[in-house]
């Protein structure tokens, strides 16, 4: 089926560029239940201010394999929910980086696009998809996900880093003893902490404990998601 798709998909690079301002993309799959449109890099591309975002094309085998994983994970979000959070296009490529720093994904709720690095951390690839999707939700609903309110959920003596890339706390392994945070990366900045809580909830990586801070964070995320879509189920 995928071979056929590659052969029959017409070149739409210009149309895609006009819509989401990313060059060198082609259609991978359009017919999905939740209306997500999957695109792939046919050639490397650079975008952003001073072309600081870059990503390479991948090979057919990787596209086919990773598409199955990505679509399996994102199929859990309904068409209605995706419309509310403004996500429509999934761009698949590899070696995604911003200003030379490798990254798992780049969410852009304005252009309704999530760029996914297919070669990013195989172990946590699926969880990271939901993590990046949360950034789409958060970016479009900054009023709901109030960071000052979130910070108050932590112990008073805890301080986040100034930015997600200005810290060495980037571990994605889930703590056995959570102590308010799911992972080391949760300790970077509030929005990454929220994204880690969200992605753990989605992937059912949370075993209920007596971690009051984490329980409050979970309640915070669930309440806000419920305000966006009261039919959303974790």
């Amino acid at each position: 089926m995928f071979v056929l798709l590659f052969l029959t998909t017409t070149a739409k690079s210009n149309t895609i560029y006009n819509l989401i301002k990313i060059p060198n993309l082609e259609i991978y799959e359009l017919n999905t239940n939740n209306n997500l449109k999957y695109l792939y890099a046919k050639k490397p591309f650079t975008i952003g201010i001073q072309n600081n975002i870059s990503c390479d094309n991948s090979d057919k085998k990787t596209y086919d394999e990773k598409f199955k994983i990505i679509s399996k994970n994102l199929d859990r979000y309904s068409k209605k929910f995706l419309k509310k959070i403004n996500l429509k296009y999934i761009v698949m490529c590899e070696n995604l980086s911003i200003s030379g720093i490798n990254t798992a994904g780049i969410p852009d709720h304005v252009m309704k696009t999530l760029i996914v690095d297919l070669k990013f951390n195989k172990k946590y690839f699926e969880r990271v998809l939901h993590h990046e999707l949360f950034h789409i939700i958060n970016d479009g609903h900054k009023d709901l996900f109030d960071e000052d309110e979130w910070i108050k959920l932590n112990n008073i003596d805890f301080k986040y880093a100034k930015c997600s890339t200005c810290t060495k706390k980037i571990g994605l392994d889930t703590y056995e003893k959570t102590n308010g945070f799911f992972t080391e990366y949760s300790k970077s900045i509030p929005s990454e902490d929220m994204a880690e809580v969200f992605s753990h909830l989605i992937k059912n990586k949370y075993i209920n404990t007596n971690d009051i801070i984490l329980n409050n964070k979970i309640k915070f995320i669930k309440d806000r998601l419920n305000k966006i879509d009261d039919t959303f189920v974790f």
Partner: protein
Amino acid sequence: MIKKIKATIFEKIIFVFLILLAIFALSFTIIIKNKCLFIKEINLQKINFEKPENIAILNVECGNVIIELYPELSPNAVKRFKKLIKSNTYNNVAFHRVIKNKLVQAGDIEFGKKNNLDYGKIGTGKSGLGTIKSEVDNEFDFKKGSVGLARSLKYDTEDSQFFIILEDEPLFEGEYTPIGKVIYGIEILYKIKYSHKSEYVLRPDFINTFKMLY
């Protein structure tokens, strides 16, 4: 006494060849010049329209393009479109953006009028009626001949500009407000002037008239 010279067979052949070449060149020039030569004329009297109140007739150099509008799909957009058509606002407006075999776009009534063409601003003009909200929630298959309202990068910025696609554009669903579909005369739109260098056309073709059937 002038001696009569008889033409040889070879000279006669050359003469006939030159005559034929001249005829061929003349015919070829006429065909090339007349881009509408093979376009069939549509006889509106012979067509029975199911909803004649939603039929719009776009007249351009090569003939009539018949468009059926879909008010049940995009009520506000079609209302705006009909209003502009009925007030003859689209008459003499340029097809300012044309992508060969893909899309024609017109409807800039501020900077695209024949007598007031502004190449520096064409494509950015307003109707003076204000923008309207995008109507993109209904399912619509953007097949060849579909007509939609153009917008800026942001939703809810539709005004008077419209486009007609000359090939299927499945990615347009949910992006652009559909207002109708060409039901006759799509081939006429392939004759609209385009540029090989740019989507924007220098000395463009114009809409002659744009009318509702009723």
